[in-house]
């Protein structure tokens, strides 16, 4: 297999989910190649070597300055056609889903999404895809090359294997329609901690917090654990917390190593967004809350008492 991995970047850093996919690719193929698309990105391309890339292709063009999908489809289509990669992998994100889908139409190439693993069975690549609210695990395959796949964010951890990547520039041309959409403004919130897609630890709050100001409890615990804060749809809809933190079917899908759910009943809507987390701890006063059915540790009790104590204990242990 010759695998190309789309390496997404932000603020001059390659993103962790992309590097995780790269590390996985390095275990599957002969030599995994990364691709970095952007403007002024030659420097960051070399970061990929230590996560398993033997080579990194860079397309450095002003048309790729803004994180918009369509010029990226042009660049990737040229690369695949020129270099003959048989597999192109993406870590799922707002940007990469559109890039992968556009590339699928352009190359008439099969795209499987929301994969939580990639395996080789008798030399054939198979994707593992949880479906129908993760009640069934579907083995998916491809009928033609290149094979395209979007991997659920947080599925693979980046593995630092050392190594240097050869960085090679590639020239690409752009279609007129691909550069028709333009970025007018980017208003990016200064986040204090890691984003929920990248965090190893997430502390999430639901309606059981009782009031918006009680999110403070969740924030303090997240901070003590070095994690990110997430919210349920119910509290986002109620205006207690921003949509960017919403986990669930209409929000984000996350899989941190530790997920602490505070005052979350665990409706299916929420479950599908977080059930692939490593360890799930739930605190809820209702002993019959559905979240206890898929938690590793369920605590029936008052979160207003438990969470502050927990924060204090974590601080002590970590100091």
């Amino acid at each position, binding site marked *: 297999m010759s695998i190309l991995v789309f390496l997404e970047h932000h603020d001059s850093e390659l993103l962790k989910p992309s590097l995780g996919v790269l590390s996985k690719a390095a275990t599957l193929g002969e030599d995994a190649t990364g691709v970095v698309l952007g403007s002024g990105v030659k420097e960051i391309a070399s970061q990929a070597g230590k996560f398993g890339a033997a080579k990194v292709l860079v397309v450095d063009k002003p048309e790729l300055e803004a994180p918009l999908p369509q010029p990226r*489809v042009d660049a990737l289509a040229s690369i695949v056609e020129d270099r003959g990669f048989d597999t192109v992998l993406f870590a799922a994100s707002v940007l990469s889903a559109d890039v992968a889908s556009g590339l699928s*139409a352009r190359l008439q190439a099969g795209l499987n999404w929301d994969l939580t693993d990639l395996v080789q069975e008798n030399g054939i690549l198979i994707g593992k895809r949880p479906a129908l609210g*993760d009640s069934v695990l579907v083995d998916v*395959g491809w009928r033609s090359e290149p094979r395209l796949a979007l991997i659920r964010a947080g599925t693979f951890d980046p593995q630092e294997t050392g190594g240097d990547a050869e960085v090679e520039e590639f020239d690409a041309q752009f279609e007129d*329609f691909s550069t028709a959409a333009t970025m007018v403004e*980017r208003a990016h919130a200064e986040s204090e901690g890691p984003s929920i897609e990248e965090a190893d630890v997430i502390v999430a709050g639901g309606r059981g917090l009782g009031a918006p100001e009680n999110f403070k409890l969740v924030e303090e615990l997240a901070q003590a654990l070095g994690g990110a804060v997430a919210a349920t749809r119910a509290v986002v809809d109620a205006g207690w917390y921003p949509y960017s933190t919403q986990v669930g079917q209409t929000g984000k899908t996350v899989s941190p190593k530790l997920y602490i759910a505070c005052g979350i009943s665990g409706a299916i809507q929420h479950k599908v967004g977080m059930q692939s987390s490593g360890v799930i701890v739930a605190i809820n006063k209702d002993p019959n809350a559905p979240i206890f059915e898929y938690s590793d540790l369920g*605590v029936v009790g008052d979160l207003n008492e438990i969470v502050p104590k927990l924060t204090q*204990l974590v601080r002590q242990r970590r100091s």
Partner: protein
Amino acid sequence: MKIAVCVKHVPEQARKIDPGTKRLDRSGEGAINPFDVHAVEEALRIKEARGGEVVIVTMGPQAAQDSVRKALAMGADEALLISDEAAEGSDLVATTNALAAALEKEGADLIVFGQQSSDSDGAVLWASVADRLRLPVISQVAELEVSDGKVRGKRQTEFGYDTIEAPTPAVLAVSDAINEPRYPSLKGIMGARSKPQRTVSVSELGVEGVGEAGSKTTVEALNDPPPRGDTVKIEDDGGAADKIVEFIAERKLL
């Protein structure tokens, strides 16, 4: 302004996969994908503000007429259903080929999608359709401004808010945060039946690469998901916080 809204008819209840065909069982009751209702609503608001017409475009079995009628009852003007046995089993590439062929003939100024399908959890179709139609695309739009010859969408990404502008014709995917959809009025429901509803076959569209034959992905096997370990459930007796710390420390997560 002509606005095409792409909707999907999805199974309403207990979703399951047919072990024989390995496709989603679509035999039961269906309904319009809830995310697509926001796309219909947004199209109607644009029409009300600027004039024009709204055409609903869908691909699916004849039962998809139920979803179409809901959109017509909300206020859309007409509908086009791509319905053909030859289209069954279409994956993303094959669906894109069929849908793009139909949309090309419609010649809409705006093509609007919902943010995802509730049955396949797909959130990709607009970008492939846009590529096929060689049109600009803006996805995940939570606020939309339409003016002469262009659209401006504000959307949320992992890092904050982006505002993106594109000339029309353009393809948009709207998030469910964009609006609160209306309920169809009784008059709307009664009137829906008399609105034009066309059905086309794949051969009438004159497009190749549709259906299972045009699909580039396969379903190889269905398995049970790996089970989670047992839940340890405790009641707080004042020591729950200590127990949580112990639990996560044992798993080297602290």
